[in-house]
């Protein structure tokens, strides 16, 4: 009886609320994409950076004390959706966006461009855009205009442990077929030593992007081409299947805490140029003089190397601002993209901005971390040209699908072919859920 009475009270209250809601006119809109009007703070800028980019913002503050700046550190987990959540709420509220952001995942540029957040850099800072080579900025070219600037170039090279190679008498592979057979040989002759990682969101970039497998192939604004049965995919998946079967790869991801242990047993792997500095030297603390980079690998029948690209972060700038706030944001853009105080002195990756690449390489040469530092650094800038440029960052997160299917299945002991099937099913389903039409041939 008591509950019934309570229910009737609740119903009354609910009815009052509904009427109130109806009377309030339900004015708010749920529409996602809206540029709205541009505002001016009077000069103060707000920048969102992930943990490794905090020094960039701090260096800017030091270099430009006249510009008031609010530095916000954001969740830097690759594949995290926290930043996107904030932006979806800003879009709904039509205010609150930061003036500049370092996107935690490169895929973020897709929704940021679609929601109208990112400013047209071709128009805003054409001289900055002109300071990059075309391939390095290819993923920023969205809907006919450059919508982001690149912090660092992150093409893959072939990393190997020169000490172990010398000791065991191996020759450095130059083709993906050589890489495969040597990796199997290493796993047989020296069990426990590994030739790569499958557990992180960059793994599909390392192997599938390198193979030009259509996972992120945009046909037009609303259509994508995904076909994991394509020969360009199967040559990579067959290789991975063999390597996983031979226990030549670690199921860890490169950023896992456990990878510090596995990393000590890394004999070779395709990996981004920033692996040297960030992973080997700073995170895993591998011995000085052991690691070495070689130029990329080529697929059968091809004469030149073809490699993937892992990150190489993107800076986005707000289209919602004007006046002094916009001017100051442009100064910030110029600083983080091209100023040596950040791009040479502090950053761990090869600068994407062409003019700063040589000064950065010269500085790295002084560090002399590698077995042959000159030869290692000589592979970095040319590697940019080995990356297929038709890969687009899209509204579905290929790296995230990889970790939640393949990384999960392999860690859980499933076979690679089962994991590959799961990945294909999920990737297509996610692309469709994001609203794309998926075609299997172009």
């Amino acid at each position: 009886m008591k509950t019934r009475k309570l229910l009737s009270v609740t119903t009354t209250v609910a009815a009052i609320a509904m009427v109130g809601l109806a009377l309030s006119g339900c004015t708010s809109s749920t529409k996602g994409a809206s540029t709205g009007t541009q505002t001016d703070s009077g000069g103060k800028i707000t920048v969102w950076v992930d943990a490794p980019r905090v020094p960039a913002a701090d260096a800017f503050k030091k270099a430009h004390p006249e510009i008031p700046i609010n530095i916000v550190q954001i969740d830097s987990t690759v594949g995290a959706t926290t930043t996107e959540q904030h932006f979806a709420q800003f879009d709904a509220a039509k205010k609150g966006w930061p003036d500049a952001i370092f996107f935690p995942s490169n895929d973020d540029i897709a929704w940021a461009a679609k929601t109208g957040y990112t400013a047209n850099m071709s128009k805003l800072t054409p001289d900055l855009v002109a300071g990059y080579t075309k391939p390095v900025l290819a993923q920023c070219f969205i809907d006919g205009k450059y919508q982001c600037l690149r912090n660092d170039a992150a093409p893959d090279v072939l990393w190997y442990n020169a000490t172990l190679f010398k000791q065991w008498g191996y020759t450095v592979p130059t083709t993906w077929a050589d890489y495969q057979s040597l990796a199997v040989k290493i796993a047989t002759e020296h069990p426990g030593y590994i030739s790569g990682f499958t557990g992180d969101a960059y793994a599909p970039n390392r192997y599938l992007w390198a193979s030009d497998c259509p996972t992120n192939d945009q046909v037009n604004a609303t259509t994508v081409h995904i076909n994991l049965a394509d020969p360009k995919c199967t040559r990579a998946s067959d290789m991975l299947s063999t390597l996983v079967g031979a226990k030549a790869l670690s199921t860890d991801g490169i950023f896992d805490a456990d990878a510090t242990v596995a990393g000590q047993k890394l004999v070779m792997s395709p990996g981004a140029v920033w692996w040297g500095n960030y992973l080997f030297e700073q995170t895993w603390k591998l011995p000085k003089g052991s690691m070495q980079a070689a130029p990329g690998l080529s697929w059968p029948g091809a004469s030149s190397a073809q490699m993937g690209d892992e990150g190489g972060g993107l800076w986005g700038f707000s289209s919602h601002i004007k006046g002094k706030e916009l001017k100051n944001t442009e100064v910030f853009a110029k600083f983080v993209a091209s100023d040596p105080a950040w791009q040479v002195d502090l950053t761990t990756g090869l600068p994407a901005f062409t003019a700063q690449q040589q000064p950065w390489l010269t500085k790295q040469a002084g560090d002399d971390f590698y077995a042959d530092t000159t030869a290692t650094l000589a592979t970095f800038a040319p590697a940019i040209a080995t990356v297929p440029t038709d890969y687009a960052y899209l509204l579905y997160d290929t790296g995230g699908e990889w970790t939640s299917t393949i990384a999960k299945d392999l860690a859980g002991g499933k076979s690679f072919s089962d994991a590959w099937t799961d990945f294909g099913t999920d990737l297509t389903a996610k692309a469709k859920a994001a609203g794309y039409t998926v075609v299997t041939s172009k």
Partner: protein
Amino acid sequence: MTTNTVQARVGAGAPSRAPHRRAHPLMRRREVAGAWTLMFPYIVLLLIGGVIPIGYALWVSFQKSPTLLEPDLTGFGGLAAYAKAFTDFRFAQSFIDIFSVLIIWMPVMIIAVVGLALLVHASPGRFGSIMRFIYYIPGALGGVANLMLWVYLLNPSQSPISGFLHALGLTTIKQVVATPGDLAVILSAMLLLQGLGQWVVTVNGGLNSIPDEILEAASLDGANAWQLAWRVKLPMIRQWIGYTALLNLAYGFQLFLEPYLLNQVASGALPSEYTPTQLGYWFAFVGHDFPSAAAMSVIIVIITLAIGLIVVFRSGLFSVEEH
């Protein structure tokens, strides 16, 4: 309290009511005014935290369902958002996932809560209150602190139970959480440790409300501690158990934080839309589709309400029937 208990023991079936008292109209009006005054703060909070958001969610859920590729889909959309949520490829799986957690967690939780509360109640004095405090401690580690504790427990390279994890062939935290079937058990264990203590305290409160005379009478009749617990105390705290079951079910059904953060700990090696609330989150903040997210919330509210109403009206746990 006493009248309630007596009624609980005597009353049979629904129609039994306390005799109507004809109060003076003025007295009655004052009583009503007093009741409303007492209820006012609750009603305000209910409106702000419950009724208005649910009303807003209902309204949003009947809008057209946009995507970032079709942001112009606005206006009244009928059941389109519900259709989209229902036909999503993760919809059924997310409910299977959450039920696989609930089916492990709920029985263990209820048995543990009631069992421990009876034990605490049967051990009066200092020992009982110390135990009650010890059981409560893990519950004080709410939210993120609880998660950090679990990350430490589940990591084979740091865990005090690393021997056990290694014996299962698990050497990394990713393997621990990503091995099929592990996640539901881990989440159940997390929920259990987090909630157990405070519910033991709650049910213990129920046990304390049993009048001493009844327990004394039972003892005089020759009931031992076991019979006292099983035949006297347990039937008399049925409502408390029902309340525990109901609130825990509602809480567990909306599981979000634990699987969301565990996924980050495992470097993304878990499904990012494991539970229905996570799928709702995806619709809102990754799919940029608030109507479908609202539809998911409404579906979850309906299911939770339905379970709640079944518990309240059908199970007899809240009724005044005699045991």
